[in-house]
């Protein structure tokens, strides 16, 4: 009976015992559960492993499912969804589409002006930050990151943070970081008499001409110069040439002699006839790899993830005959010997929509992509360069030699990314630029328009778009 106000001895023991037990459990949890310190090691590789994923679980009612708008990351995305479901009991519904499709769906969702978003997690890439962050469609994640034990900014590599930041706030988390790189057929290089891969853009043109063999159906070069990918190529080229996309005040800077030199290179490549023709076709990315694997192109310069098929024994027909190298430099720019890899680092990731009713769970899903186990799943299945540094102590990462190449580029070479990347529009009209670039620069490459005209036309389109979006600079 608890009516008595006397504290009996039994009660006393019970209370103290409980407190002591609680303390013991707390201490144990603290010891086992606390995230180990992140210790930077040689080559930027860190040594930690343990993390507390559950950390702080969101309070409040759990949704039945969350909706995620993403590119195709199979089978990795299924793994992450399964982990998420097992951990929290929440289903994940994916809406899978590709880059520009993601943009269109996000625009449609934003334009509807309804009280809640259609999606909880949306795709993040550099071009999305200002387009949607500025409009308030995606949520600043700084507070979530501060509370997270999984997403540790000091345990993440690659200059993706700059393009993810706008007005001092972080709007997206990269799931993987990657860059463009050069891939080449060692056998064809040997046959042409070269003992090392091309190091500059000018070299590439020369090598491609030499290795171009129409009789055998072998093209000198293949790339990803279609739709949205062309812009990424052009930005690298102009940066290597010492130019910029935007000035600090946000006005267009690519209509300059550096811009001309950059565009001229693409034109020279195309008119030399050494570029695999489907390089310009819509959605040429994947075709690119098949073509190289089938031995139809000697050099390839495109996204690093595209190269994993070369390693895949099921798809690659000539294993062991590939070499990888960094982004080329511009021969006119001797200071940067192997020029920048990422004028703005790439990576695809996730953002949380501002009008999602399940924001905290959405962030938990982003965390799920970023765990150690999930990262290893990516490495073993997809071969996308991981963002986490600590996984590089795991021997499985040696499976993909391109990782070291990527890390080297991302860590050690100049990049135009932080704190204010000058390759992105200050008012977020990047998708206008993407399209305008491809449309007009393609024409310039084929001689339907002069290089100067193309640059001026795109400058006009971009300036108009920026003004309409409220840029006054």
């Amino acid at each position, binding site marked *: 009976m608890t009516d008595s106000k006397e504290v009996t001895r039994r009660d006393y023991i019970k209370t103290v015992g409980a407190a002591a037990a609680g303390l013991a459990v707390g201490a144990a949890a603290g010891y086992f559960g606390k995230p180990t310190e992140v210790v930077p090691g040689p080559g930027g590789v860190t040594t930690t492993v343990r993390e507390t994923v559950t950390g702080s679980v969101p309070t409040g009612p759990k949704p039945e499912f969350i909706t995620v708008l993403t*590119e195709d990351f*199979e*089978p990795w995305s299924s793994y992450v969804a399964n982990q998420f479901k097992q951990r929290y009991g929440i289903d994940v519904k994916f809406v899978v589409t590709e880059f520009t499709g993601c943009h269109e769906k996000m625009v449609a969702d934003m334009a509807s002006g309804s009280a809640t978003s259609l999606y909880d997690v949306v795709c993040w890439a550099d071009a999305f930050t200002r387009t949607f962050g500025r409009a308030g469609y995606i949520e600043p994640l700084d507070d979530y990151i501060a509370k997270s034990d999984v997403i540790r900014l000091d345990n993440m590599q690659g200059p993706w943070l700059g393009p993810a930041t706008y007005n001092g706030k972080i709007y997206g988390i990269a799931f993987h970081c990657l860059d463009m790189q050069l891939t080449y057929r060692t056998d064809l290089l040997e046959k042409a008499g070269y003992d090392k891969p091309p190091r500059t853009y000018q070299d590439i043109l020369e090598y491609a001409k030499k290795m171009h063999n129409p009789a055998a159906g072998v093209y000198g070069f293949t790339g990803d110069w279609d739709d949205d990918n062309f812009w990424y190529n052009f930005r690298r080229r102009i940066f290597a040439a010492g130019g910029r996309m935007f000035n600090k005040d946000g006005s267009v800077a690519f209509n300059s002699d550096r811009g001309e030199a950059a565009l001229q290179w693409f034109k020279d490549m195309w008119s030399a006839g050494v570029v695999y023709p489907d390089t310009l076709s819509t959605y*040429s990315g994947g075709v690119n790899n098949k073509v190289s694997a*089938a031995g139809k192109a000697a050099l390839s310069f495109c996204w690093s993830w595209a190269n994993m098929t070369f390693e895949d024994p099921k798809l690659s027909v000539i294993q062991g005959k590939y070499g990888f190298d960094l982004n080329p430099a511009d021969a006119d720019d001797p200071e940067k010997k192997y020029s920048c890899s990422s004028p703005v680092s790439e990576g695809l990731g996730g953002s949380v929509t501002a009008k999602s009713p399940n924001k905290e769970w959405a962030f938990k899903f982003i965390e799920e992509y970023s765990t150690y186990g999930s990262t290893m799943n990516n490495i073993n299945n997809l071969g996308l360069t991981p963002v986490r540094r600590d996984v590089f102590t795991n021997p499985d990462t040696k499976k993909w030699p391109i990782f070291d190449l990527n890390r080297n580029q991302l860590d050690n070479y100049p990049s135009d990314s932080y704190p204010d990347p000058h390759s992105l529009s200050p008012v977020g009209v990047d998708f206008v630029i993407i399209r305008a670039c491809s449309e007009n620069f393609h024409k310039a490459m084929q001689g339907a328009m002069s290089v100067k005209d193309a640059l001026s036309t795109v400058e006009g389109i971009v300036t108009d778009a920026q003004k309409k979006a409220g840029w006054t600079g």
Partner: protein
Amino acid sequence: MPSRRSSTKMKRNLGRVFFYLIVVVILLYILAPVAWMFTSTVLYETDFVRLSSNLDIPKEINFDYYITLLFPWIPTKVEYGIFGGSWFLIKSVTDTTIIALATTALTLVLGSLAAYPLARIRFGRRQSVLTFMVVVQMIPGLAILIPIFIIMRTLGLIDTFPGYILPLTAYFAPFVAWMMVGFFQSTPVELEDQAIVDGCSRWGVLARIVLPLVAPGLVASAVWAFLSSWGEFMFAIVLTGSQVTPISVLIALAVGEVQARWGWMCAQAIIALLPPVVLAVLLQRYLVKGLTAGAIKG
């Protein structure tokens, strides 16, 4: 005499050969592209690329794409995961079938019901309604897409079946109505008048006498509506998402940047084209008669 007869015979034979040549060209024109796409689905990708660029005949045929698309639980050499692949196709075919059947049914009901009064009953605004039906068909879809999206979003119907079926019905009903007006008008009016004099209600006349007479028109409209809604694309990309997955969206967005899985994509495309083609081929006679009947009458 004999030489002239034999030369005419030769001319006729040559003419016949030439004629059959044209027939073969026409058949090739129709079937060769489809056959080629089918070829890409039964070869491994590098084999297909070799065949396509060098005419190297491959050594093995591979049905793995179909197996993994239609029977995802069977392991094959071409695994592409769950969400980007197999289960999605089955769900997509199911969804599209539901959409097509529902849209067809709704369009038929609304369209033919609306057509009967326009054909038979003389009321004041009859001509304006008819003109309205014709003019509405000329509206470009893109012009109304954003307003429709906003309406559906306000009603909370985005990514639901009604949210996609209703706009489609509104889009297709005018054509069906316009076509059915012709059919109703081509049935003898005496039958209806006789039935009314005999004491039948208007509803009865419609249900028991007129509708059976225009059955071919109904079949034609149904086939047309099914085909149109199966392949509809523009409204689909905006009005649907993860819960409702029309197959046209799947086909269009199946190309990724990471892997252009041609064999995989084309296998999906082949599966996507089977229902409408089979339907059109089976019910072709009705379809053609239905569509052309109105036109011929002028």
